[in-house]
């Protein structure tokens, strides 16, 4: 489903990724790990065409992502849910509106939005807080909103960049459990983290980008 082959990435001739090779199969859960600055975020960003490799090939469902036309990038991103360390929620929209945004950008409106958003909010146990604004929620709750927004489009892949970076251990466990539950339903998950405890909790394949 996802293939990185001989991927190099440099910024000002300073290589942060050297000969990165790995594949991810459909329905898999993998951890991308490595120390800070090793290129975990860059690796994930390449999958949503936010970054291009300096050399090498990145493929998603057989499509060479660096060759993707600018106008096709939004459609690629609708197939991939992305969860950020800093949540990236819109503070002037409610929990419900933030999650609904994921569907609205895809051209889905009306009753389908109400149904899908309600379902996903129930799944992340935030339905009762649907009318609250993100800033009134705890970090863990905000991250659950971000996960709900990423998953409401029913993406084939969920990318999570240090999703528990700002959270305590107990909340991190809840987040991982939620992500795992969606993985069990068939969503492929790539989770970037440098937290060894989290990796131990996850019990999944680990790709160390400094070694791959």
């Amino acid at each position, binding site marked *: 489903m996802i293939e990185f082959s001989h991927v190099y990435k440099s910024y000002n001739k300073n290589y942060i990724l050297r000969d990165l090779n790995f594949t991810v199969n459909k329905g898999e859960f993998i951890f991308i790990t490595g120390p800070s600055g090793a290129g975990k975020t860059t690796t994930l960003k390449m999958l*949503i065409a936010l970054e291009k490799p300096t050399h090498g090939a990145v493929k998603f469902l057989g499509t060479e992502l660096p060759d993707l036309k600018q106008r096709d990038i*939004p459609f*690629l991103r609708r197939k991939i849910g992305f969860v950020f360390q800093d949540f*990236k929620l*819109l503070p002037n929209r409610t929990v419900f509106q933030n999650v609904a*945004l*994921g569907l609205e*950008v895809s051209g889905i*409106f*009306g009753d389908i939005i109400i149904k899908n958003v309600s379902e996903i909010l129930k799944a992340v146990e935030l339905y009762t807080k649907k009318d609250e604004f993100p800033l009134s929620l705890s970090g863990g709750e905000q991250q659950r909103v971000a996960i709900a927004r990423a998953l409401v489009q029913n993406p084939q892949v969920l990318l999570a960049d240090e999703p528990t970076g700002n959270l305590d251990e107990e909340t991190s466990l809840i987040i991982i459990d939620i992500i795992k539950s969606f993985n069990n339903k068939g969503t492929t998950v790539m989770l970037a983290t440098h937290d060894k405890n989290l990796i131990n909790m996850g019990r999944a394949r680990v790709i160390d980008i400094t070694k791959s």
Partner: protein
Amino acid sequence: MISQRANYFINYFKIAAVNIKSNISGNVFAFLIMSFSFFIMLFFLLCYINIYNYMNTFQKSNVMLVFLKNNAKKDTVVHFIGTLDGVKSSVYYSDKSSMEFLEKRVKHLRSVLKNMNPDNLPAFIKINFKKNAVSGIFLSNIYLRLKSLKGVKLVYYNKILRNKIVQFMFFTKVVGLILFMFLFILSIFISYSAIKLVILRKQNEIEILRLIGATNNYIRIPMFIEGEIGTVLSFLVSILLLFAIYKIFIFYKFDSFLEFFRIKIIFLNPAQIVLVLLIAVISGIAGTYLSSKKFF
């Protein structure tokens, strides 16, 4: 497919409304400046249309007034007029009938005229030429010959001013065009600044929208709608303001003063209003396009 597009469109309007609401002070400021520039545009157009109309009626007039010197005899002049071709009618007004003539024309100034000595008014002959029966050159020739007659003090002839009018009209056209261009660029700049502020303030939001799969159109169309709502509202305010001023002008009968000079004040017709609205809409689109171009 159609309902999908309609949903998109409704959603774009909702986003634009949220954008406007979230930056109400900035939008009101831009809106006021835009209203002011459209008002100047419309006001100038109104003045221009009225001047143009006046000049047109002035040019079409085929009347010549021959003012006689005090105690001068009219016979030579009347005889000369009688020999001319193309004269429709000629009426002699003595100093006394000059007063009657004035009283008839400016009824509202009768109280002022009452204290006036008719002897101070000049005797004159009003000549009406047949329309299209005489050329401008012919009338200019008559004007010069009448002026040279003994006993004639002054000949008043509209068409002598024709060249000056044409020059004046040309001048107003050039000035008007420059002013219009300036105001057009100004309104583009205002839309540009207002939308650029929105973009700068919403850069984080735009980034998030892009990351979750929003197309450039999804982000940009609400901005165009926002720009156009501001432009159209500014235009409506400026046209209503101009209309109110026009009505006050009429209500207090300032126009009756101008009527003395045969100037009839008219308001802009629908076509002219639509033209300025079109200019306003184009300036809104251009301003939004230019401000969002850098970011998309």
